[in-house]
């Protein structure tokens, strides 16, 4: 009799054990915690921006949990993120995404940092039908693959510098006379930016007088700038990530390049206003988000309030990179989607994400059929003589021509 009782107890324990062991395989929700997975670059060449992203995720998770978490089926759940370091290599990222999904049983994902990494990971999450909300992959090519489970809260890359061309057209007596100089790196992101610029240039019938491609190991673009000085274009447009911005600013300074309008990406990341204050005066720089934006939401408040909260959490930031803001927005979309779906079923949640339409501190969010956010514009800022950034909403807001005395 006792023996029998023991066997039953043992059997029960075994059953619990098996159930416990099997649980991780479907552990999208453990107890009252919803686990989001992310492979993120904490080492390697994207380490800095990877960290900005991770902090954006963590800050949003903390804020949402403190405000009561996510309510699904009348019950409150906390959010948590499981991270792996992808070492900034796409192959590793794809491997880790598979590990998150297959071994750790993660069913909802947050994106990695950069278009390249997102490109490597999206096919994996797509294959397993795992919805992924990403905040750091802007390449247009991510949204032409017909992915059903990929959503991005940020504006796509072809919008980065297109407004600068609009401004140049506004400032010219006849847009057709504007002479444009282009210097773009050959990577997918910069080529997307260039495509957006070229669409506008062709629309206005402007003349492209210099069209140079910059190398990936970019440390010297003096030949391009020599040509710029000889041909005197009305606007110079440069894109090549932080290294492109740093090299361009340094050599524009050194070669005393005087072009009335200069627009380039990644000014903030390269800190051109601090390192080359003289040359950077008058640069037009696109950004995904500005803290003076007049948008707000019930979770984080206004853009300025999110900014203040983030700085209080991470006091090392003097100015908060937009990469962190959009990362927080991605987590916020997950909360909204879970609550709208009122379910943990992947496809129901996926459809809820697709239907999301919300105002956030980061701007409006509404996804197109391809998964990119079509409700939020890019913003253009100009660097002033004192190194500050000011928002340029129309051509008349900007200092034109650049007023630099070398």
């Amino acid at each position, binding site marked *: 009799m006792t023996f029998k009782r023991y066997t039953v107890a043992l059997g029960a324990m075994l059953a619990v054990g098996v159930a416990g062991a099997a649980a991780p395989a479907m552990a999208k929700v453990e107890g009252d915690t919803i686990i989001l997975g992310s492979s993120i670059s904490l*080492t*390697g*060449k*994207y*380490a*800095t921006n990877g960290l900005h992203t991770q902090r954006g995720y963590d800050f949003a998770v903390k804020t949402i949990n403190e405000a009561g978490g996510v309510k699904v089926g009348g019950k409150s759940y906390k959010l948590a993120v499981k991270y792996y370091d992808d070492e*900034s290599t796409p192959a590793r990222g794809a491997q880790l995404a598979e590990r998150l999904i297959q071994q750790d049983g993660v069913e909802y994902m947050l994106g990695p940092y950069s278009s390249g990494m997102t490109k490597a990971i999206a096919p994996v999450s797509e294959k397993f039908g795992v919805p992924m909300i990403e905040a750091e992959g802007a390449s247009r090519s991510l949204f032409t693959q017909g992915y059903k489970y990929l959503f991005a809260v940020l504006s796509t890359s072809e919008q980065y510098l297109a407004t600068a061309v609009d401004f140049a057209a506004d400032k010219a007596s006849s847009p057709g006379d504007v002479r444009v100089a282009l*210097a773009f790196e*050959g990577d997918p992101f910069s080529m997307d930016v260039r495509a957006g610029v070229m669409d506008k240039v062709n629309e206005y019938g402007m003349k492209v007088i210099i069209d*140079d*491609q*910059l*190398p990936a*190991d970019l*440390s*010297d*673009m*003096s*030949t*391009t700038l*020599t*040509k710029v*000085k*000889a*041909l005197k274009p009305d606007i110079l447009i440069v894109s090549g990530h*932080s*290294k492109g911005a*740093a*090299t361009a600013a*340094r050599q524009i*300074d*050194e*070669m*005393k390049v*005087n072009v009335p309008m200069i627009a380039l990406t990644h000014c903030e*990341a*390269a800190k051109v206003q601090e*390192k*080359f204050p003289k040359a950077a005066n008058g640069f037009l720089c696109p950004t995904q988000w500005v803290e003076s934006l007049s948008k707000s939401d019930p979770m984080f408040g206004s853009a300025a309030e999110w900014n203040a909260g983030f700085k209080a959490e991470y006091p090392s930031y003097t100015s908060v990179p937009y990469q962190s803001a959009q990362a927080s927005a991605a987590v916020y979309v997950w909360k909204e989607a879970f609550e709208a779906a009122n379910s943990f079923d992947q496809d129901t949640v996926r459809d809820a994400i697709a239907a999301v339409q919300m105002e956030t501190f980061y701007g409006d969010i509404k996804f197109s059929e391809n998964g990119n956010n079509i409700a939020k514009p890019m913003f253009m800022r100009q660097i002033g003589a004192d190194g500050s950034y000011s928002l340029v909403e129309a051509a008349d807001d900007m200092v034109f021509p650049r007023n630099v005395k*070398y």
Partner: protein
Amino acid sequence: MLDNLQLLFVWAPVINIQIILEGIFVGAVFALSAYGLALVWGVMNIKNLAQGDFVIMGGYMALALTSVDVPLALIMVIVIISMFIYGWLVYVVMIRRIIDQDMFVSLLATFGLSLLMQQVMNLIFGPEVQTIDMELPVYDAFDNMVTIPSSKIISLVMAAVIAVCVIAFMKKSRTGQAIRATAQDPRAARVLGIDTDRVYAFTFAFNAALCGAAGVLVSIIWVIQPFYGITYSVRSFAIVTAAGLGNLPGVIGAGFGIGLFEKYTGAIVGTAYEVAAPVSILLLVLIWRQISMRRNRQVVQ
């Protein structure tokens, strides 16, 4: 491309001066790092794929020293000495063990070293592009069409001084003679009482010091990033292949030649092809050598 040619030779010939100057400035830096490679290759038969990473490491040392306000001349001395010590350590720990192995072992080992150095620099200094801005005046001429930053003039002078010292050292000093003797015939050198192991260690350390010096110049005239080493390795290999081993005047000539060729390629075809220029020269030199050697072989037959 036709537009660019027209611009260079018809519309604004004055910009040729700028391009030639840039070519000379880059050439001087390339020659410095290439000469070190020519030495280790010629003396020890080690093809050092971490050459460019030594350059970048020198650059980061300079960057770290500038942040504590050390003057440039002193930075140069400190970097040369500490890179020399680093080179000696690398020799003792690693290179000594692969010196008698075949070519692939030396390529693989130095490639591994290159990866290791990149990642360590990335961990310490971060992946952002950095530069030393000395805030020195920039001279201009021809109605601002030609600009010459004083930092580039300083770097050219420094490169020239170092080159002269190296030539004198290799010609006159006992160690220089020992290096040349070991390069010619290590066995005979050993018989005559030269400690070849020490010569090898010195040569490798000397190479690291030269690279470090080049790195200081790179960081004051361009930008550095932990992963930029490879472009300097490629250029060094191209220059050494074109000039031949152990031929210092040849290396300097080839350095300037490749610098100019690179800048003109950039101006005519596009900046993206600048780095491709030395590689295409490498290819042409190899083909040309192959053809000329074949002619020799036929004579022998």
